[in-house]
């Protein structure tokens, strides 16, 4: 029993059996997190650095908590306030930190492919915590875990990913993960926010939220990533919200019990209205809870590959 990869750079590189192993292991860690003492000694001889070159709340806290609950030693690094602002390169920063005997790197970077680049230059295992508009593998894994918890095996289940597909690393990782697990996926959003040729990844495209909701079992609603949009792709947030936002009245009119998910942070009233985000159908906070267990599973399985540790 072990993963086929040394790093978790993206779901693209994983086998379906890897995903299943991670989800199965995460179930066990979820049980650990319900105990009076929510900590196991497994990674007590492992040091992990969290390299965050981009802002994060959930992912950073979730990774740090996962590391601590596995008894690993953690070091946090944020680009602001570090020597990066003095012009130090990515490789130099990483090599300097690793020379202090750090075994694993959790990394977020605004440049697509930054963790893949680093993986070619350093020895330690790398976990991608989001790179540009490419992938956010642990988010996809925790989404799959949360969906499985709610719906059972995902084979043949209908999942809609709604919103800014173009700039979302969550969308891409979700597409890889869900199709590998045998689910049917539709991406839905305004044409300007859906990349061309996305059908080649095995998903269908829809521009109609109502039809998409009528079709799906789960709606994973994504944030409009204004910070990554260099040119205007829709006229206004208000217009976006009217045509592509998921509101209570829209959801009620579909007359179907759809599970609502969102990777956070939510722009309330834009892609998702507050009453939907806080409704019983929403499992947004379960997603956050499951994130810790899933990240524990990823770290455990990667650290357990013997040649991983330096």
């Amino acid at each position, binding site marked *: 029993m*072990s993963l086929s990869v040394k790093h978790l750079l993206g779901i693209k590189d994983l086998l379906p059996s890897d995903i299943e192993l991670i989800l199965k292991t995460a179930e066990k860690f979820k*049980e650990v997190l319900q105990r009076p*003492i929510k900590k*196991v000694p497994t990674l007590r001889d492992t040091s992990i650095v969290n390299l965050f070159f981009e802002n994060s709340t959930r992912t950073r806290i979730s990774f740090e908590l996962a590391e601590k609950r596995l008894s690993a030693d953690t070091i946090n690094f944020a680009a602001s306030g570090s020597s990066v602002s003095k012009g130090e390169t990515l490789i130099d920063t990483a090599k300097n930190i690793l020379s202090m005997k750090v075994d694993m790197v959790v990394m977020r970077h605004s440049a697509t492919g930054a963790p893949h680049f680093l993986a070619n230059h350093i020895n330690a295992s790398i976990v991608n915590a989001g790179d540009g508009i490419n992938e956010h593998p642990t988010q996809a894994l925790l989404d799959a875990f949360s969906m499985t918890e709610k719906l059972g095996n995902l084979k043949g289940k209908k999942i809609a990913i709604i919103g800014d597909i173009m700039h979302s690393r969550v969308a891409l990782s979700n597409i890889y993960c869900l199709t590998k697990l045998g689910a049917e996926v539709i991406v839905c959003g305004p044409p300007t926010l859906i990349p061309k040729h996305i059908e080649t990844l095995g998903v269908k495209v829809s521009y109609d939220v109502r039809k998409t909701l009528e079709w799906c079992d789960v709606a994973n609603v994504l944030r409009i990533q204004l910070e990554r949009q260099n040119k205007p792709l829709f006229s206004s947030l208000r217009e976006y919200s009217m045509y592509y936002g998921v509101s209570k009245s829209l959801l009620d009119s579909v007359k179907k019990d759809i599970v609502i998910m969102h990777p956070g942070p939510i722009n309330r009233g834009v892609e998702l209205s507050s009453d939907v985000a806080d409704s019983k159908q929403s499992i947004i906070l379960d997603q956050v809870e499951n994130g810790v267990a899933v990240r524990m599973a990823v770290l*455990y399985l990667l650290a357990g590959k*013997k040649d991983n540790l330096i």
Partner: protein
Amino acid sequence: MKSLYAQQELDITLTRLAHQLIENHLDFSDTVIIGLQPRGVFLSDRIHQKLQQLLPEINIPYGKLDITFYRDDFNSGGSLHQAQETQLDFSVSGKKVILIDDVLYTGRSIRAGLDALLDFGRPEHVELLVLIDRRFSREVPIQPDYVGMSVDVINNQKVKVLWKEHEGKDEVVMIGTK
């Protein structure tokens, strides 16, 4: 493969172990039974069943404990162990705990089991029941309180307990004999 124990003898031994537990714990008012995953659970299922047959009016708390995340061989090579389910829906604080595993060999699994157990509270005391005690092979100072059978085998041999529920027959075998 050499047979050490056949079905009928095994059943007699399980009955004896159950009676020894009753002798020491009488009405099991403060006692809980915990089987260690993965293979100790087959034995603890049987022992728990026997006890409930002998004491039908008492409900004895019974749980299963996985030790995967507490093992001391995590980074010593070889492949990872698959974690199993832990099912302990009662507190062990202040309780007398009977830990159950099938084969006691180096004692390292029990060491991990104790660590795992203490994360669920502070038991009043902990006893160990094993079906097979491989004597003279301990690597940590751990001894059983209840033993089905003691065997002396050399280190490159393996003792395995087979169960009807899992392998189709009840038997204790020694593997690797020449």
